[in-house]
């Protein structure tokens, strides 16, 4: 018997979160993940916000919500030139860190996120069969 599972990918553009304070940003992300959506957010959270997201996630863990899988994909190259790096840092200070993407998914659906330079692998697990598949 073939088991079909619907996965919902929710894209959150940076302008949707740039005016939110840290707590509201985190609540928005967690709310979507708890609704079994895989969030693809433009940009990234600050380090402190990432820690707060983990802390909040721990507070929410229950028999049904097992936590999150989280990964940040940087699109700005580390080997960018000096002036380009300064320019990008100034843009970050003024507009927030909109470089790259953040992927957050519910741990009961996303077992692991693997990153290669040019691809991202989401390892999912079907609860019915326990088999793994890559997307």
């Amino acid at each position, binding site marked *: 018997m073939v088991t079909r599972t619907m996965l919902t990918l929710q894209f959150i553009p940076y302008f949707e979160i740039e005016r939110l304070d840290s707590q509201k940003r985190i609540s928005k992300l967690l709310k979507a993940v708890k609704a079994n959506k895989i969030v693809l957010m433009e940009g990234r959270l600050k380090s402190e916000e*990432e820690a707060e997201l983990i*802390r909040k996630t721990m507070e929410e*863990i229950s028999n049904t919500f097992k*936590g*999150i899988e*989280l990964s940040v994909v940087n699109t700005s190259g580390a080997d960018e030139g000096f002036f380009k790096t300064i320019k990008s840092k100034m843009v970050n200070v003024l507009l927030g860190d909109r470089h790259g993407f953040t992927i957050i998914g519910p*741990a*009961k659906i996303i077992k692991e996120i693997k*990153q290669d330079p040019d691809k991202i692998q989401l390892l999912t697990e079907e609860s019915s069969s326990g088999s793994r598949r890559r997307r």
Partner: protein
Amino acid sequence: MINVLKSFKNFFSKMFGKKKKVKLGLYGPPNGGKTTLANKVCLDWLGEEMGSVSNVAHETREVHIKEQVVIKSKGKELSFNLVDTPGIATKIDYEDFMKVGMKEKEAKERAKEATKGVIDAIKWLDDMDTVVVVLDATKDPYSQVNVTIIGNLEARKIPVLIVANKVDLKKSNMKKIQAAFPQYEVIGISAKFGKNIEAFYEALFKLAGQ
């Protein structure tokens, strides 16, 4: 970058020189060997272990402190309070504990304590004066938890030493850990067997500017 490292050194040096109770935290993902390293340090310098270790993740679910640890080398002395923290994770599933033989009630209790442990470990970040990040050298270092821990320490300007533990295992890959965090000194050790532990102590002295 050299200036940043120097300022870290000076900062660390000042702390060890002036403050009475410097907190040296052990941070990292679950099962990296934080408590094994804490036990090794305590056994070497205090003659007693610090906590229990296990192959099952989240064995340490509370913050443990060993006060007044003094390490000595070549006439130098370093004194600190050692803080062993629970492993930081983004997910905790009680069913994982059942897979290693725990009863449902026990597994749920362990999961609940583990979540509290992660929250406490994050809260304690603000209290640390310096941190040793303990990573499992057999695991992929490019996990967001590692990046988040180190990013938070950087944001708080807390000096960091990275330890790649379990180098006694064939699967270990020191180069991969070094490649993941090129801006930090990485010391490969086996806390369990004491391999390269002298280099670890030397790195602590070096970080302290001694």
